[in-house]
């Protein structure tokens, strides 16, 4: 009888594999988890996009939860999501910190003049070093950071109203975040 049961082993293994496929089909294998999830924002000292004299460190951002939005003028998707960010900042008063990533300062300033500035402040990361410490692998990316400076979540790709309502807002306004 043992021998007969052995003959079922391949079938069982296949069933397990098929189940895995069934569950995983449709997931996006290219999307990367945030390696620093639950950790503090890495150290940085960066200049302000608008004012090269002004230097910011992570300590300056503590106190209130915020969205950290990675953007650049060379990134077409950033242009697509920009109106949504402007809308969130103006209508809902969301605190958004910009991270201008591997960009040209003058072009970036122009961009904000033309398309509107949703950012409470914009960090200028010309070399992309802070981006690298953060784990940025493309733009746009949007991070949720709580009042203590802990990284809660990363959204990769364009922020839409849906993404905001269903994913970002609950995290930003969650128990750790307090009110807007």
């Amino acid at each position, binding site marked *: 009888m043992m021998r007969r049961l052995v003959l079922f082993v391949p079938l069982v293994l296949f069933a397990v594999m098929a189940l895995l496929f069934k569950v995983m089909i449709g997931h996006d294998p290219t999307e*990367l*988890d945030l390696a620093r999830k639950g950790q503090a924002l890495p150290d940085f000292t960066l200049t302000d996009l608008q004012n090269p004299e002004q230097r910011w460190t992570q300590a300056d951002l503590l106190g209130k939860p915020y969205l950290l939005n990675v953007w650049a003028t*060379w990134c077409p998707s950033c242009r697509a999501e920009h109106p949504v960010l402007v809308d969130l900042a103006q209508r809902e008063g969301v605190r958004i910190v910009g991270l201008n990533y*591997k960009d040209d300062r003058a072009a970036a300033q122009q961009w904000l003049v033309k398309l509107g500035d949703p950012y409470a402040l914009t960090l200028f990361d010309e070399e992309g070093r802070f981006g690298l410490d953060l784990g940025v*692998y493309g733009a746009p990316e949007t991070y949720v950071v709580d009042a203590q400076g802990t990284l809660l979540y990363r959204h990769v790709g364009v922020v839409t109203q849906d993404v905001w309502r269903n994913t970002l807002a609950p995290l930003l306004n969650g128990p750790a975040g307090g009110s807007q």
Partner: protein
Amino acid sequence: MMAAWLMRAAAMQLMRVGLILGFTLALSVHAAVEVYDFTSDEGYARYQSLTYELRCPKCQNQNIADSNADIAKDLRREVHRLIEEGQSDDQIVDYMVTRYGDFVRYKPPFNTATLILWVGPAVLALCGVGGLFWLGRRRRQRQIPNETSLSQDEQARLDDLLSDHESKK
């Protein structure tokens, strides 16, 4: 440079929307070549093996040595910098893992989560060897004249098979 970036970013976007038909390999596959100067040949050798074992976070499935995605360039630059700063291979891999997770290692770490990956093949091989021995023992047992291991049904089918050969001779 900027234009190439735009093209690539636009292409990525198109792909997300699913407009590109057929192979997606198209996203500019051309050799990524940069020229870094190393203070020692050993450093260059380490650079080659490290960039070969680190995975580009943005690409489909490429190591950072082969990819010419912007992020891969940045990571190559970091690997070069860290080697020149005198960091060990493990330190450099840790540096990458802190930022991008285990995803960047083509050689997964050995831990409880990856146990089955590293030990699995050995276990399979042992099962195979075990099966062989089991087979050998059964065969030797079967040399004993009165066969009790076959059920009536099995015996009938065996006879059937054998007689089939008989008739074809």
